[in-house]
Structure formats: C-alpha cells, structure tokens
C-alpha cells in the first residue's frame, strides 16, 4: 500500500508501530504508577512489555505484508521494508532483553518496573531512528533512545559501578550528540534541508560537494561512530558495558548499535550517495575499529569486557558493510545484525546466569569446567562464541559471508581481507571461552551449581541458539527478507557512488 504522508491518516498509518508502542508505554506507566511494590508487579510489567513488543511487531508485520511504502520522497518518516525488518530486530532484541531481565532484576533486587518503561522508550527511540527520513527525527529518536539507555545503564544505582557507567555514558554521549548536531546543522546549511531524500537530491545537483557538506558528513560520522562504538570513539563502551546491568549491556550492544547503523545506512545511502568522501573516511574507521576491537579484546580476562571489545570489533565488521555503500551492504548489515543480536544476547544471557552483582568479575577462567556441570549452558555459549567468531554452520558465518560478498562486490577486496584477518585474531579470545568450558576441569567441586537460568532466560537462550543454528544452515528466508529490505533503501538520485 502506498502512503501519502501529507494526509494525517496515512501519516498515522506510517507511524502505527511507533504509536502502538507508545501506547503500550503509556499503559505501562499507568500500571506502574499503581503497582510498583512487589516482585509480582515486576513480572506483570514484564508481561505487559512483552505484549507491547509483540503487538508492535504484529503491526509492523501488517505494514510489511501490505508492502507499505511512501509515495514520492518521504517527509519526516520513511516507510519501507528496511524499516520493518530493522524494527523487528529492535523488537526482538528488546524482547530477548526482557526475557533475560526478569530473573536478573529479581536477583539483583532491582524491583522498579520503570525499567520496562525505559526499555520501551529506548526501543521506541530506535524505531524512530530507523524510521526517520529527516535528520531532525533521527536526532530526536537518537536522543530518546540515549536518554532511556543512560538511565538504564545507571539503573542499578546502588552500585557505584552502575552509576559511574551511566555518568560516563551520559557525558560522552551528550558530547557526541553535540558533534552530531553540528553535523546536522552544517548539512542543513549546505543543502538547505534536513530531509534525507532532499539532501540526496540537492547533493546530486551540486556537483563536487561543498566543504560544509563534507565537514557536516564527517561530524555525522563522529556522532554515529560514537553510538556504534567505532574506534577511536569506542572508549566508553568497555567501561559502560562493564558497569551496566548485564541485560542492559545486551540491549546496548545489540539494539543501540543496530539503530545507529540503521540510521547511518539511511543517511549515507539515501542522502550522501553522491558524496564519495564518506567511503574513504569509513574505510579507515572500519579498519581501525576491526583491528582495535579485536586486539584490545585479546587482553581481556573479564568476560563482560571481552564481549564489549568484541562488540567494538563487530561494529567494525558492520562498518565494512556500510563502506560498501550498496544495497548488498544494507542487506548484509541486516543479516549480520540479526545474527549479531542473537549471539550477543545469548552470550550475555549465559553470562548473567553465571555471575552475580553485575558480572563484572566473571572472568574466562571462572567458566572452567562448565561443560561437565551445565552442558546445555556451555553448549549455548559455545554456539554463541562460534557464531561471533563467524564459524560456518552458525548465523554469524552467514552474516560475515554476506558482508564479505558486499565488500568484494563493491571492490573493497582489501577491506574484506582485513576483515577476515582480524577475525582470525578474534579466535584468540573466543576460543579460550570454549576452551575453559570444555577443556579445563572445574576449579572447585560444584563451582557451577548455581549457574542456572530461569525459565524466561532459558527460553531466550534456546531461541537464540536455535535461530543461530537454523540461520546458519538455512538462511534463505532471512536472505529474501534482507534483500528486499536492503534494496528498499535507495539513493535518491540516479547517480551512484563511485567506489573506493
């Protein structure tokens, strides 16, 4: 169905998922206002959140099913397959986060159902980012997401680490927002608009891009580089991931990153298709991010910090997909991000089962002998690690494969080679996890007896693992989805970006 966004009805339709989710958020606020004392309230809040996420996903599906699209150049929001698919990813990430949060909140005595409200608002922000076809909308979505996640990171404010994480995240995030905003301003100045489609049109008319536009572009990349934790804007990530409650870390590592990338794709491909400068900048950004993330992760003993650096490295891989600048790159991003979300959430879920008090002290050695005591848990973590490593048979491999295809078909062979070489380095820290679980004895008798997941967490992990393996072997459906979604993000002008 084709939408004319100048009519309110169609605008409402285009924003239906966001509206539904906002509605659920308001319902939740009301509920929480009345009931916020007991553990049971918390659980009900969790259920409501899940219901909200599910119904939003349903609405999104409905729009996708009807091939909803915007007629002409989109105004404030786009409506295309890319948006629906990435929305599902956000919703899925949020839902998985909810599943692993339930037990965590109870265990850590974080009996504040506001947690779920913020989670919903954060998800809403992501969806807005992905939907926005105007820089202003994207900026506001980003702020909405950020503000929610700042608070979530410091949610366990009784622990100094959590509060400190929130502060670091907040200060640096606000700082990065300044750059992003400046970039928006300069882009606005250079093209006279903040609408991405019009930016693309204007930039296409301009001939060689003006200095203002290029500087604006660079500052936009800074802003998004911060959110995706690209080197050298990544330094908050290990500390914040470390200090934040583990489910929040999972949410940050997956949803936040995916949202930033989604917006970046839309901006670069639709708006800056005729500005080749970003290929060069992103090329370097991708290289240092892959190299840095993987090397720094090698030195980590703490599992959580290791995963943090690993998420930096994965941002590097995704930047490769962005650098390719083609619809194949966009599709690759979607496939990868699905896999990445599943494996990251899976890994953090297992981690949260093993640890106490924020898990910052769980080291790789603490997993020794997990396989003999908790074979399924170990298996799940092993699958996640292999998938993160990009091993065939897992979805991580399919994603990486797609990114390599996208990069090489855009002529970025060197980048692809760097990607795989840094992946080899990553074996140096993923494998020790498997090694510890399977090849080392339990340090003390019954060291892992209390490493258990509750029913919700088990569901999340089982879902993640099964999906990882399924997509690893039979990714066809995912591909079709990603391909049509990737192709729906098109440069506004017929001019195509010249490759690296």
């Amino acid at each position, binding site marked *: 169905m084709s939408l004319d966004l100048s009519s309110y009805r169609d605008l409402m339709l285009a924003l239906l998922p966001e509206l539904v989710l906002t509605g659920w958020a308001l319902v939740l606020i009301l509920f929480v206002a009345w009931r916020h004392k007991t553990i049971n309230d918390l659980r009900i809040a969790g259920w409501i959140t899940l219901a909200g996420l599910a119904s939003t996903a349903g609405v999104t599906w409905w729009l996708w099913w009807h091939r909803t699209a915007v007629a002409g150049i989109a105004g404030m929001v786009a409506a295309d397959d890319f948006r629906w698919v990435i929305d599902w990813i956000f919703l899925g990430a949020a839902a998985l986060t909810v599943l692993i949060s339930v037990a965590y909140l109870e265990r850590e005595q974080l009996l504040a159902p506001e947690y779920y409200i913020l989670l919903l608002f954060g998800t809403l922000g992501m969806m807005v980012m992905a939907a926005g076809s105007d820089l202003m909308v994207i900026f506001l979505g980003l702020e909405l997401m950020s503000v929610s996640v700042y608070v979530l990171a410091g949610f366990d404010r009784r622990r100094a680490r959590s509060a400190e994480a929130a502060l*670091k995240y907040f*200060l*640096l995030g606000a*700082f*990065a927002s300044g*750059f992003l905003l400046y970039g928006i301003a300069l882009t606005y100045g250079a093209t006279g608009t903040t609408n991405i489609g019009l930016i693309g049109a204007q930039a296409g008319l301009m001939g060689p891009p003006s*200095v203002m536009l*290029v*500087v604006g*572009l*660079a*500052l936009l*990349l*800074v802003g998004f*580089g*911060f959110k995706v934790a690209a*080197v*050298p*804007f990544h*330094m*908050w990530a*290990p*500390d914040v991931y470390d200090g934040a409650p583990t489910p929040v870390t999972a949410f940050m590592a997956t949803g936040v990153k995916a949202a930033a990338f989604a917006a970046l794709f839309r901006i670069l491909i639709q708006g800056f298709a005729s500005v080749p*400068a970003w290929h*060069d*900048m992103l090329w*370097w*950004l991708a290289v240092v991010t892959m190299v*840095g993330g993987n*090397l*720094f*992760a*090698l*030195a*980590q003993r703490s599992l959580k910090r290791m995963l943090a650096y690993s998420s930096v490295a994965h941002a590097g891989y995704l930047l490769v997909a962005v650098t390719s600048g083609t619809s194949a790159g966009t599709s690759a991003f979607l496939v990868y991000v699905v896999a990445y979300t599943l494996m990251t959430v899976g890994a953090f879920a297992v981690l949260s089962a093993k640890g106490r008090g924020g898990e910052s002290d769980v080291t790789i050695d603490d997993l020794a002998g997990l396989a003999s005591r908790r074979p399924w848990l170990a298996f799940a973590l092993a699958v996640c690690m292999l998938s993160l490593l990009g091993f065939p048979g897992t979805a991580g491999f399919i994603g990486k494969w797609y990114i390599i295809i996208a990069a090489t078909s855009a002529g970025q062979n060197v980048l692809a080679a760097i990607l795989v070489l840094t992946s080899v*380095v990553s074996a*140096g820290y993923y494998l020790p996890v498997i090694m510890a679980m399977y090849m080392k004895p339990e340090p003390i008798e019954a060291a892992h007896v209390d490493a258990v997941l509750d029913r919700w967490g088990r569901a999340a992990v089982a879902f993640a693992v099964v999906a990882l393996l399924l997509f690893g072997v039979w990714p066809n459906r995912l591909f079709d989805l990603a391909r049509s979604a990737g192709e729906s993000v098109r440069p506004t002008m017929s001019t195509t970006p010249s490759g690296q």
Partner: protein
Amino acid sequence: MTADAGTSIGLVWVPPALALLGFVLNGTIAFVRPQAKTAVSIIGAGVLLAGFAVAVTIFTGFAALHPEAAVVARYWSWIPVGTLQVDFAFQVDQLSLVMLLVVTGVGSLIHLFSIGYMKADPGYARYFAYLNLFVFFMLVLVLGANFPVMFVGWEGVGLCSYLLIGFWFSEKANADAGRKAFIMNRIGDFGFMVAMFIIFWVTGSLDFATVFAAAPTALTAGGGAITAITLFLFLGCTGKSAQIPLYTWLPDAMAGPTPVSALIHAATMVTAGVYLVARCNLLFAMAPVSSAVVAGVGALTALFAATIALKQWDIKKVLAYSTISQLGYMFVGVGTGAISAGVFHLATHAFFKALLFLGSGSVIFAMHRAYHHAHLHDDAQDMRNMGGLRRWMPWTSALMWIATLAIAGIPPFSGFFSKDEILAAAFARGTAQPIWLLFWALGLIAALLTAFYMTRMMLYTFHGPNRTGDGAREHLHEAPWIMTGPLVVLGMLSVAGGLLNIPELYKGGAWLHHWLEPVTAPGAALLPETHLSHGTEWALVGVAVVVALAGIAGAWRLLKPESLVPAPQSPEERGFERILRNKWYVDEIYDALIVRPLVWLSREVLWKRIDQGAIDAGAVNGAARGARAAGWANRWLQTGQVGVYVAAFVVGVLLLLWRAVGGGS
C-alpha cells in the same frame, strides 16, 4: 621371447615362491610355536633345496633351448602409468641362471649349516624366516626383468641384511650395525633410483630388454646421460657391494650370525652390484669414463681393504675386509669389460668365501661352546684367543686351507683362474688405455696382501700354540656333521670351481665365457679391441702366481704365532699398525665429517633454531604475543579516565575532519 609353459623355464617363479612360502611358514611358527625347531629346519632348508632342484631343471631346460635372448615371464602389471609400464616379471637368461644356481646352491648349503649353528638360539624360527625371506628377495633381484623389480630385490635383500645383522638386537652394537648397513645401502639405492629415472626418461622404459635395445640409439656413447646413468648405478653398487666410499657397513655387518655373513655378506647379496654392472654391461661399455671409475674404485677398494685386513684380530673382520677386497676385484673385472671374468670370480668367490665364513663359523661355534662350558666371557672371534685349533678341528682346518689357497690364487684352485682372468683382462685393456695398467698393478699388490693376510689368519687360528685358556680348551670340538657337511661340499667347489671357465690358454673350453656371450656380446662389441699374445699371458700368470706364493711365504716367515698373547693381555699397536688396526680411521672420519655435523645441524640449527626458534617462537608465537601485547598496551589508554576518552575522541574527530577537508582526497 616369452616364457613357454611347456618347458621347465616356466617354473622360474617356483624358487622365489618357495622361499617366500618358507618365510611365511617360518614367520608364523616364530610367533605361534617358536620351539618347533624341527619343522623350521625342514621348511627352511627344504624350500632352498627344492628351489635348487628346480633351478637345475630350469637350467637344463634353458640350456637345451640355446636361446640368444632372455626368456621373460610376466606375472602381473605392477605399476602401469602412461608410458611407464612396469610389470612384475622375471627374466631367465644366461646371467640370471648362473646367479640363480649360485644363490640357491650356496644358499642351500648355508641353510644346512645354519641348522647346526643356530640350534641353541631361541630365535631359531625367526632366523630361518629371515633367511628364507632373504633368498626370496635375492632371487627377485637376479630374476627381475626390469629395473624396478630388480630394485624390489635390491632393497629387499638390504632389509633382510638389516634384520639379520641385528638378529641379536639386544646388543646395541648389533642393532647399530644393522641400521648402519641399511642406511649406507640406502645411499646407494638413491643412486640406483636416480639412474632409473634417467633411464626411463631417456629410453621410455625400464624393462631390461627394451632399455638395452633402445640404448644405442637413444644415448650417445660417452655422452653425459649415459655417464650419469652408469655412475648413479655404480653408486648403487658401491652401497650394496661395499665399495669405496660406502664399504664401512660390511665389517660391522659381521655382528650377525656367521652363516648370514657367509650367505649375505660374502656369497650373494654383496655381489648384487657386480651382477648389476654385468647386467648393464652394455650401458657401461657405452660410458668409458664410468667403466674406468668402476674399475678404478674396484682396484682401489681391493687394495685398501686388503691393507686393513692385515691388522684385524677378529677372524670375521679379516674375512669381511677380504670380501670387500675381492668384490673390488670383481668390479675391476666388470669395469674392464671382462664380464664373464667378473661373474666367474663372483661364482668362485661365493664358493671359497662361503667356505671361509662357514669355517670361521665352525671355529667360533667351537670357541663359543668352549667358553660357554667354562663359563667364560672372552671374545670367541678374536684370533689372539685361538691358535693351534687344527688339533681339535682338523676338517675345518683342512677345508679352510683349501679356501685360503683358492683366494690367494694358487693354481689349480678356483680362485686362481678367476682372479688371473681379471688381472689379465685389466692388463689387456691397459694396452689400449694405460690407466688400466695402474688398476692391474693395484690388483697385483692387493693379491700379494691377500695371500699374506689369509695366511696370517690361518696361522693364528689353526697353528702355533693354543691361547684359548686352560679351562675352555678341553671343550673344543669339531662341529657336527650338519655343519661340516656343507663345508666339504664347498671345499670341493673351491677346488674345482675353476673348471667352469678354464681359459683357452690352458686348452680349456672357457665354458662360462661362452655361456654368457649372449648377455655380454652387445657390450663387448663396443670395447676397444685388445689382444694379448700367449707369451704375455703366460708371463702374467707367472707374475700372479709368484706374487701369491710370495704373500704366503712372507706371512709364514714373518709372523710368529708363538709370540702372541691372548686378547686381554695384548698391547696396543703403535704407528702405522695402529692406523691399519683402526681401519684408517674411516669410520671416525665419516662420523666427524658427516654424521655428527648432520645431527648437529638437524638438532641445533634446523630443529631448535629454525623450527622451534625462528618459526615457532619467533613468527608464530611472536605474532600471537605481539597481538596480545597490543591489546595489553591498550590498558594505558583504557584507564577509566573520561579525560583520556575525550581526548581520544577529539583526536578521532580531527582525523576525520582532516580527511574530509582535504587531507584525504
């Protein structure tokens, strides 16, 4: 010409098959029922005797046919790849028949001897299994119709030699000797293989018949290819037949049981090289340089080994060096082009050297038994512990004297004819190519030394006073008949072996020479025409006999068995004697120049420095460590201080701006 099933030639597969059967049966017995010695004896010796009988029938069948070409029996296609078609095939011709008879004949006698000699050994069945296996491979060697099949036997006999030298493997020295033999042989085999490669790429085949037929057209006589082929082949021969520079394994090989020394290290295996040169006489004839090398190395070896034999105390070592020396003679013969002379000496040598070894075996057997009864652990092989044994072992003594006269070249014993023929041939070729005169001279000196050291050995062993020791002496006995019997037969052959090839000079028929003509003719046609007058020939004969007699007489006069003391009390030799006693220090030189540097290189440089150091610790683990260090270095930045983070952030901004504004484009 292919094998005709109608004649006895078709039975050529039987002797090797019998030997193989013997191996399988005895091998099984060795595992299942090692004490079943009677069965082992019957099988072990039986297959050989049967084989000899079959060989004789084949011989008669073949002789009746008078074929000019070899009869080839193809069994199966072994390695068929493209133009390389190697069949598992045997070939019967004059040369291989001679070898077949020698191997099965002498082999049978030695098997019989072994029944007595090894009686008490716990590895009796294993011993006969090995011995049968050896005969099998030896037959494959001499019967093979192409180079690869011959190579099967060639390496197979090396294997059996290895196993039998190290038969009493619980002694490290024995096992060492076996290994040394195998590796030295492998060096030679390397030459054999390379020669095969060149032959194949030059002639397109490895079948003897095809190769020899194609050689005159495919190769230029005296050219590089043919010289390379023959030199590489000869490298193989130096290994197998213990010539300079690869001879050092053979003296050590005496660590094996004495019948093994007789069979493998005297009569058959070590002559394989001679057989190979004889087989490829055409190729050698086409390569004069190689022929000179063969003859030269042979002559040098003959002399060199003889010098060492002068000062050996171990009775088997004396014989070992004598074998090396005699093999040198054979190479002089075949190198000269006197193929029939070389083969003739091969045959006679098989008789008298087998006799000598078996005789020494009897002596050692007796000595050993005596020491065993006296509960002594003296060296049963050291001649200084013997002396005057003819009193206790008259048969052995007499038979070994026959062999000694034969090897010394005293007419009319067999060795006289064969050795003389070689020297005469060398002299004759020397008239055309003077270098051969030098070889002849070397051979003559070696003959002198041969007579000398053999007499020395006989004197010290059987004559003079006995030094065995009082307690042991009373236990000395002649060996049982199963051992002496074969000695007698070999003695007769040593005496009469010359009949095989009485030269025309003595109005003989030169039977062997004519018999081998179909094999040797192509090569002989290429050799320079030489002719010696009867006068010259008689003069040469005279010189040779005088030299031999001089050697014996000299030894008789110079050596004083009475002055010897038993081994434990013997003083160290000094000066030149000491150098000879220590075999010119060749083993030590090889060890210092090749073995130890190689091991050092492998261990210290290749393994520790390169493999573990440079590659593993340096490159591989170094890369891993480097990556990890880079990660660790990040700790200096990731300090938790927001200020540092902001600074890094701003640096990133600046770099991006720089590339955006103009630095990048």
